[in-house]
């Protein structure tokens, strides 16, 4: 073995040493190298659902409105301006004349109309169809109740004017429109490859794809690389600094960290937990830890005794030392969660809290009939098979054992089995996470209503459901915030969920990458990203 290595070293010595880093070469050419975490399933903005797809859509598509890179407030996109009717129901968008598809076709109001008709077509089966349900009659059309699309609240006034009518005034509607499901698709191309009403069509292959964003899809090697190059037809091409973005689908966070250190990436997708302290101490200039609109929590099955008892649920919630979990286990600047909605979501921070209070928890458990944990049945914590979920579950298991003197088991299942168990409420306690689609508390609180598609806890509180119904007819921001406070107070008082922490995004980024600003949705419009002018520093 040693001799083989020596031979190899002789053979490669001349070639290997002092080679310039890939990141340095790429930087000279204006190419950004980022790890996107996983191979995209498809690049159809109307059917794809994953984070990795969305991060590519951000480069190759543009909606009517776009996002400010700092705080994501709506800025002109394909629409150069818009008017909102006084009652907040009708949005009129004025499209710019120079907006073009990557093949040179103009982007018109008709494109948006046809695109939105496509996503609402029941046969297409788009997952994010509900993002359009703010629009008048969209839900009725999508569920087949009405067949005539002209009744849906979309209207082409002229090629440069597009009108949207909503069901109720929705103050955060423009933010919702930043979601990929609001991007236009090039209907003639979609049609050509038979993708108008189905997913599995070849129009999204690199050689076929026509897009309207700052970049276009040039090359897609499966599980290897996706290259997006600057689009000369983009209306704001002068703002775009990068010539190309290369997206890698490296799944293992250890692998991507090594690639980053070897100078193959400008930005990683995440960072292994064990590596965070080292970067915090030694290379804080490369490390980013940014608040992220998401909550890590446990669902409790409120139908299964003894978990049907509110006191038991509260006892469980109060005896999780969340601070210890974020400081010693996750370690990426996460905040211990004492309520559900992340603080500062569109100006809302919950007042209701579940404290960490072991004495109170013991008292509640005794009141529920299990003094000192005696007679408490053995429960199972379900989690999907991921190392960090296991670690947290093990910590919680031990906390409950020490604080409440109850024994819980751990049960991990592969992802789809775990989803099926949650869906059929065939679990006792299970780990969960929720990442917001848009920055509004509604996106966190509407799931706990009765029959909410993502409730899965069996929790059904009529007062809560009533508040939610009331919310639908409230458009004054202050009133909405008041309702959210009440809803969250109910949620925390009955604890169908046990909050653990609020997510952060932890990743590495080369200091020469500029225009990459922290924000809670982790959206980074690439057209504002550029390389610093100074020479890249020596590798670390």
């Amino acid at each position: 073995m040693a001799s083989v290595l020596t031979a190899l070293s002789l053979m490669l010595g001349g070639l290997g040493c002092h080679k310039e880093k890939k990141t340095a070469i790429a930087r000279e050419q204006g190419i950004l190298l980022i790890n996107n975490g996983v191979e995209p399933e498809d690049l159809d903005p109307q059917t794809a659902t994953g984070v990795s797809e969305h991060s590519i859509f951000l480069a190759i598509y543009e909606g009517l409105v776009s996002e400010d890179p700092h705080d994501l407030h709506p800025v002109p996109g394909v629409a150069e301006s818009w008017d909102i009717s006084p009652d907040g129901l009708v949005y009129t968008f004025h499209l710019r004349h120079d907006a073009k598809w990557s093949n040179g076709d103009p982007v018109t109001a008709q494109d948006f109309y046809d695109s939105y008709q496509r996503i609402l077509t029941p046969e297409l089966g788009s997952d994010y169809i509900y993002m359009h349900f703010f629009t008048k009659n969209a839900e009725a059309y999508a569920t087949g109740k009405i067949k005539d699309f002209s009744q849906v609240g979309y209207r082409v006034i002229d090629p440069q004017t597009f009108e949207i009518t909503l069901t109720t005034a929705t103050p955060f509607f423009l933010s919702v429109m930043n979601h990929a499901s609001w991007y236009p698709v090039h209907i003639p191309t979609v049609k050509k490859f038979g993708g108008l009403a189905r997913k599995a069509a070849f129009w999204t292959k690199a050689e076929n794809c026509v897009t309207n964003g700052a970049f276009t899809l040039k090359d897609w090697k499966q599980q290897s690389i996706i290259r997006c190059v600057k689009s000369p037809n983009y209306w704001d091409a002068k703002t775009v600094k990068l010539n190309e973005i290369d997206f890698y689908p490296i799944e293992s966070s250890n692998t991507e960290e090594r690639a980053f250190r070897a100078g193959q990436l400008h930005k990683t997708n995440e960072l292994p937990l064990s590596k965070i302290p080292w970067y915090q101490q030694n290379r804080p200039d490369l490390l980013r830890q940014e608040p992220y609109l998401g909550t890590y929590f446990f669902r409790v099955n409120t139908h299964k005794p003894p978990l049907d008892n509110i006191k038991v649920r509260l006892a469980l919630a109060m005896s999780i030392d969340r601070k210890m979990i974020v400081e010693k286990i996750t370690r990426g600047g996460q905040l211990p969660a004492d309520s559900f909605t992340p603080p500062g979501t569109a100006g809302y921070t919950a007042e209701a809290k579940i404290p960490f209070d072991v004495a109170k928890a013991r008292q509640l458990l005794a009141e529920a009939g299990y003094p000192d944990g005696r007679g408490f049945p053995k429960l199972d914590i379900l989690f999907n098979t991921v190392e960090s979920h296991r670690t947290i579950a093990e910590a919680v298991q031990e906390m409950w054992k020490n604080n409440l003197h109850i024994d819980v088991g751990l049960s991990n299942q592969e992802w789809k089995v775990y989803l099926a168990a949650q869906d059929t409420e065939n679990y006792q306690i299970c780990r969960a996470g929720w990442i917001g689609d848009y920055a509004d508390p509604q996106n966190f609180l509407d799931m706990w209503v009765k029959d909410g598609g993502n409730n899965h806890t069996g929790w059904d509180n009529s007062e809560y459901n009533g508040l939610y119904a009331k919310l639908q007819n409230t458009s004054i921001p202050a009133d909405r915030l008041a309702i959210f406070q009440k809803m969250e107070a109910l949620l925390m008082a009955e604890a169908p969920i046990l909050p653990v922490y609020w997510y952060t995004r932890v990743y590495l980024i080369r200091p020469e990458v500029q225009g990459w600003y922290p924000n809670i949705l982790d959206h980074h419009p690439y057209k504002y990203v550029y390389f610093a002018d100074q020479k890249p520093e020596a590798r670390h």
Partner: protein
Amino acid sequence: MVIEPESEEPGSSLWSDARHRLFKNKLAVFGGITVLLIGLVCLLGPLVISYRESDQNLQIAGQAPSAAHWMGTDNLGRDLFVRVLKGGQISMLVGLCATAVSLTIGVLYGTISGYFGGKLDAVMMRFVEIMYAMPFAIFVVLLMVFFGKNFVLLFVAIGAVEWLTMARIIRGQVLSLRQQEFIEAAIALGLPKHRIIFRHLIPNVMGTVIVYATLTIPSVMLLEGVLSFLGLGIQPPRSSWGVLIQEGATAIEEYPWQLLFPAIFFSLTLFSLNFFGDGLRDALDPRASKD
């Protein structure tokens, strides 16, 4: 010459010869004793150590070896020493038992297939091919879904895959042995088939079996780690060497001891088993005695 146990007291001379030769092989004896010692330490050690496998102390998570924690702590602040020892109990149990089971199935299957040949061989070998192609990931998922958490399933899952190559190898050996004079003679003499199989064929493939066993034990132990991670084997807070090595491998640079100590125990056991196995192979070699 090849063995002719017919002319001797069945068993006694063959096995006592083998035992004699085995005990003369110092390295083999040393290997055997080491394995026993490791087993003993794993069994008794946890009784002496003042920590339990499940005791967490997040304040000291990920600490390097110290006087209080000889092998350091893991990412939840558990004492790694006691976890390595307790894990050793599981790994040795699973490694030895599952290997024994897989090899027994593989050897019998391969011998029968190779000896009888013809249609039976064709069917048996096609079945092996079917088992090779079985989607293991789905199989594991289904086992868990339909039978829940059960330690026995671990053996089922390991058993389902580990015997296949053994069966193929033994079949190949038996096919070639069958053509040799002593087997043809035995057949011509009209000896019963089971006698030929157990007294003539299997002793002659024991060398290969033992070599393959020393290769199977580590792969079984590591497979146990993978299956446990998937939720099929042992459940936290219990551990095994396979699980510990997997966990340790994710943080080689930051917490090298979390990989090093379980890996040392694992390797030491395998090296010892290997020396013991080689000695056993030599001792059981039916031809070696004639030298």
